[in-house]
């Protein structure tokens, strides 16, 4: 099985260091020094009612410390979609071929120490299979609960959306403890020909936590994959998201919002790989940084030789609310085809004084005006989310962080 090989690989690779170009601005030395103990399966009672959205009342899976808790999950609304323990799927004759084919394929562990570590500790996880032509109307939520202090959890998700299927998947990372812990998660997503997948990823770990995730998606012909990642929690978070378009006519939007304050560091590394002609990608990442909060955005778009008629757009905008906040942003385009439409840009700014004056000229106090503009800045990403309760919750979260109500 892959676990032994992954462990060997992790022992060789170890944690990435800042000498590695991809980790230049995110130092894991503090994490490497911790003695986190790999979490084990437990069956403790747990109130998870606050973690699920009304829309997912009949379709949610609860994963505690990386282990799927069927007793806490509800799967009555799955309409033919399979959502089960990943290791059980690997042992099930109906799904083992799929698991063998796709597990550790998109998210290879040979060059990535953290993915190797996750793979080495693969003991549960979630397998979601959306059969051909099945359109799942209700969103399916997978909540990863970090429940134990000083532990390391290795959540794993494999999603296979078969031809012409459609679904919405919500990944939510939360915690029930206030201490330090380490979440090292990997999600692999396969979107086959003509399938449509919406994928939300909400990271709200506590502010002591370390959170490292990889999301790797692979898109089929004329498929569509829309993903939005929200990063609010953790003292240190890193998200590597990659979308590979190796079939014609695929479309993707890869959006995100990070909002961090003092003593928080968040890093997004994104790779969008146009390998075939006629694929579109649209990326909007926005960041709000307060206190001495730090963020890193590194977005690569590759347009490979022969990937003609590619349409790729990438934007990263950052709003600094304090002089001590810092952002390192690096959008990158590498184009090896000649008939393409590509644009990218990054912006770092503060509250616009003209916008603020406009609000104050209507009697709004400068403090409320600044908060309103910050909220408006985040809204561009939040408003695109199609699940209403997520939008509402994020609105509330952003406003709460700004100590404002509307």
């Amino acid at each position, binding site marked *: 099985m892959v676990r032994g090989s992954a462990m060997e690989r992790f022992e060789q690779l170890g944690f990435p260091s800042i000498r590695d170009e991809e980790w230049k601005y995110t130092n894991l030395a503090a994490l490497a020094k911790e003695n986190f103990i790999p979490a084990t399966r437990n069956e403790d009672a747990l109130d998870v009612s606050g973690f699920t959205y009304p829309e997912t009342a009949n379709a949610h899976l609860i994963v505690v410390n990386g282990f799927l808790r069927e007793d806490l999950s509800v799967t009555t609304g799955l309409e033919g979609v399979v959502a089960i323990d990943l290791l059980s799927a690997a042992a099930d004759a109906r799904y083992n071929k799929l698991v063998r084919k796709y597990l550790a394929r998109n998210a290879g562990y040979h060059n990535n120490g953290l993915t190797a570590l996750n793979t080495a500790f693969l003991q549960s996880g979630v397998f979601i299979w959306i059969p051909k032509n099945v359109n799942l109307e209700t969103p399916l939520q997978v909540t990863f609960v970090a429940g134990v202090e000083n532990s390391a959890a290795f959540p794993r998700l494999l999603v296979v959306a078969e031809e012409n299927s459609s679904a919405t998947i919500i990944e939510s990372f939360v915690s029930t403890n206030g201490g330090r812990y380490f979440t090292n998660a990997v999600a692999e997503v396969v979107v086959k020909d003509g399938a449509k997948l919406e994928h939300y990823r909400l990271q709200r770990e506590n502010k002591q936590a370390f959170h490292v995730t990889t999301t790797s998606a692979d898109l089929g012909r004329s498929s569509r994959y829309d993903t939005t990642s929200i990063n609010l929690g953790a003292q240190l978070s890193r998200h590597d998201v990659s979308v590979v378009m190796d079939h014609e006519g695929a479309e993707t939007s890869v959006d995100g919002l990070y909002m961090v304050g003092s003593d928080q560091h968040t890093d997004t590394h994104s790779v969008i790989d146009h390998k075939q002609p006629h694929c579109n990608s649209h990326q909007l990442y926005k960041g709000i940084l307060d206190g001495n909060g730090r963020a890193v955005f590194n977005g690569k778009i590759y347009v490979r030789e022969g990937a003609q008629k590619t349409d790729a757009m990438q934007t990263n905008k950052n709003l600094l609310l304090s002089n001590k906040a810092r952002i390192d942003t690096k959008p990158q385009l590498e184009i090896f085809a000649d008939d393409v439409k590509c644009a990218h840009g990054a912006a770092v700014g503060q509250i616009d*004084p*003209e*916008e603020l*004056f*406009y*609000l*104050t*000229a*209507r*009697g*709004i*106090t*400068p403090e*409320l*005006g600044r908060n*309103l*503009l910050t*909220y*408006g*800045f*985040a*809204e*561009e990403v939040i*408003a695109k989310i199609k699940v209403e309760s997520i939008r509402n919750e994020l609105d509330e979260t952003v406003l709460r962080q700004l100590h404002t109500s*509307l």
Partner: protein
Amino acid sequence: MLEIKNLHAAIDGNEILKGINLTINKGEIHAIMGPNGSGKSTLAKVLAGHPQYEVTAGEVIYEGRNLLEMEPDQRAREGIFMAFQYPIEVPGVSNAQFLRLAYNEKRKHLGEEELDPLEFKDLLKERAKIVEMDASFMTRSVNEGFSGGEKKRNEILQMAVLEPKLSVLDETDSGLDIDALRVVANGVNQLHTPNDAIIVVTHYQRLLNYIVPDFVHVLAGGRIAREGGKELALELEEKGYDWIVKTPEPNGKGAVAPAK
């Protein structure tokens, strides 16, 4: 209501206003006209408290208080309203949210109870009729994607919601076609009562056919070069500004004293 005495103001060290004297009483409509660069918009912005403009001399008394000591938001809550020449877009904040916040800030200031979103919706619906604005504009982000005319209408909608005592309309007619101009002017006329005053800043006489001023003041070189009644605007339309620029009257003194 408002008394401007020997007002001097500068931006980035350049003096734009060089001694403005102006008295505005309740119920009056004053037009401020003048060629480009004469200081019309600067005067409007100084009254609203734009932070980029520095008042270097003079005073402005509003209802017996020193206006220049008040912050912009305080001025607004005290009843001063400037319709922007270039209204700002505020992405992500709906028109209804923005207007309700502004409205409630004023209510709080006056010691009145705030309106919740539903109560405010009714009020907004009523006020939107004044500028013939469709309900769809209320859920859209403030001014985002609005046409020039829609933005100006939205300014007057804000005026309708906030019910200011002193409104300063900074080139509200610029960029408006004739139909939109009529709607905007009509809105302003509906809102005008004997208890408030309006300053209309404009380059052209056109708007003054609809919003008829009691007094016209012509700025040139940062000073008031001519003053008169509404007929002065017609004279300007015919002769242009050149004759005034070339033969300015002494500082702040008009050729024709406005009737008190």
